[in-house]
């Protein structure tokens, strides 16, 4: 049990099938508090499905999905409740609210009461600009605060989404392909950004870009066909024969 009670996130024997297709096969994964973990794997390895199970979008057919030292069984909650428990998610495609300004995107994400009445008359309707700007400064979007989010570049949208994630003040961040479509310079900035964030958050990053994963310098888990193929340092995983086999597609 000690593995459970020390973990921020604990998946054990999780299986999910869609119409007979097994997206996850008895997947097990443990994340320590404060740890950053990179998840790699070819297409269809089950990376996104794993995120969906953790955030409540998909229910696991079997297995345990436990959060916060095993005290919370995530399978009993829906998306909104899980977000409130402290799990934030950044999607693969940047999904910012395009017809809102950059500042408003952060305003909506900020931790706090999310009831309609709070937004109409209460606390959420009286959030100070400085609070929002603090998060925009972290992702270097302060100069863009009044622009529509839809007008941002692809990379800037990704950063805005990271700012929104931070504004939620989650205990665990799930970040799906943060550097997809970014320039090399943007990728470097993002790696630094994530390393900063990982100092006081637990982070799971799903990424294809091996250079980026190496820059993160954290433990790596390689998924394949819905279960863990290899786990360890980037060099150990990248040197693993089965991993090479899977990636080169023999």
């Amino acid at each position: 049990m000690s593995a459970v009670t020390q973990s921020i996130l604990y998946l054990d024997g999780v299986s999910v099938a869609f119409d007979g297709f097994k997206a996850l096969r008895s997947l097990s994964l443990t994340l320590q508090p404060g740890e950053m973990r990179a998840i790699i794997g070819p297409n269809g390895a089950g990376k996104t499905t794993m995120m969906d199970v953790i955030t409540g979008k998909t229910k696991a057919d079997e297995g345990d999905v436990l959060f916060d030292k095993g005290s919370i069984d995530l399978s009993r909650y829906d998306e909104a409740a899980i977000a409130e428990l402290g799990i934030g998610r950044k999607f693969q495609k940047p999904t910012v609210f395009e017809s809102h300004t950059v500042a408003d995107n952060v305003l909506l994400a900020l931790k706090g009461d999310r009831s309609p009445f709070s937004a109409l008359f209460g606390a959420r309707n009286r959030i100070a600009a400085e609070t929002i700007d603090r998060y925009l400064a972290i992702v270097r979007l302060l100069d863009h605060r009044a622009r529509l989010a839809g007008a941002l570049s692809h990379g800037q949208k990704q950063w805005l989404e990271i700012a929104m994630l931070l504004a939620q003040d989650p205990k665990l961040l799930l970040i799906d392909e943060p550097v997809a479509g970014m320039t090399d310079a943007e990728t470097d900035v993002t790696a630094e950004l994530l390393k900063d964030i990982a100092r006081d958050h637990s982070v799971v990053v799903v990424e294809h870009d091996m250079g980026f994963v190496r820059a993160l310098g954290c433990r790596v888990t390689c998924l394949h066909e819905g279960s863990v193929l290899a786990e360890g340092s980037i060099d150990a995983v990248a040197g693993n024969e089965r991993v090479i086999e899977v990636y080169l597609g023999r």
Partner: protein
Amino acid sequence: MLTARFLRMIEGRGLVFLGIMALVALLVPLCNLYVPPGNPFHVSNGTVVLLGKYLCYAMFAVALDLVWGYCGILSLGHGAFFALGGYAMGMYLMRQIGTRGVYAHPVLPDFMVFLNYKELPLTWWGFQHFPYAMLMVVLVPGLLAFVFGWLAFRSRVTGVYLSIMTQALTYALWLSFFRNDMGFGGNNGLTDFKDILGFNVQAQGTRAGLFIVTCMALALTFIIARMIVASTYGKVLVAIRDGESRTRFLGYRVEHHKLLVWVVSAMMAGVAGALYVPQVGIINPSEFHPANSIEAVVWVALGGRGTLVGAALGAVVVNWLKTVFTTGWLAPYWLFALGGLFVLVTLAMPKGLIGVWEDVRARLANRKAIADAKASGARPSDAGSPDPQVPR
């Protein structure tokens, strides 16, 4: 300070709208009551009723725009709430007739006597009291919207599926209100009203009074709607419209947010219906007809979805066109015109009349900026803002 905040909330376009409403509320009754017929500035009794009707529709359109334009809930059955509000008002008016009906029964309305009712059905109790009837005007549509919305939003029914369900809702009500044993006058509905709060509904003065009340109600509806959309709650609604599941992943209980705006909108529609009935003098099941609700969607689309002012403008413009088209030799072509209008709006002006106006204004402002820049010797390409800022 408070006024400044109010002005910011209403915005320029809204102030113009409220200004026009105040002017209309003042001028139309004045020109009806105090300018003699024959004078070119005289407004006939018929026109007052017609304008009053348009304004009720405008209110209804604002309510619809609130849910569709801002929260993305395309209701094709909003007419149900409008008609329910109308029926609640109609029931009050029926009970005011008293012994002046054809059968001169002190309690039962004519149609009940005709159908051999022995006593007043429970649903009609209390409707002789104006405050109770007014409460029902907002409560009945609100309650129906609450139950419907609670079930639909909790089950995450969205998009066309929800639209079809709203259509089914109004269709079901349409069919049931036709039945005599529903106790609401069946096919004929409620009509032959005598007075409201002691004033003769047919009298010119009462008509003018009702018109002014309608103007005020429309203005108030607009202000409430502006308050909603200008608050952070309005931003949450737009977020739900543009990315429902994303909003849910942020931790918002999307169903609660949808439910609130849905119920508020239904109540507004109910009030619009209640003001409509004493002015047109009748309420019958045809108000529940699904086509009415669809037509209201066309008004909002034509005026400009998600602008509130545009919705009201669209309602007035389309209904004015309808009046023009359905009187005279054009009458058989009205539905073609309406359909054509909808196609035209969808293809040529997706942002509606308001959108066209904004485009023209932006172009003029840009041209002026370029001219100014030229005059001051700067490079013309510096003029204008290439960066889209917050739309106002």
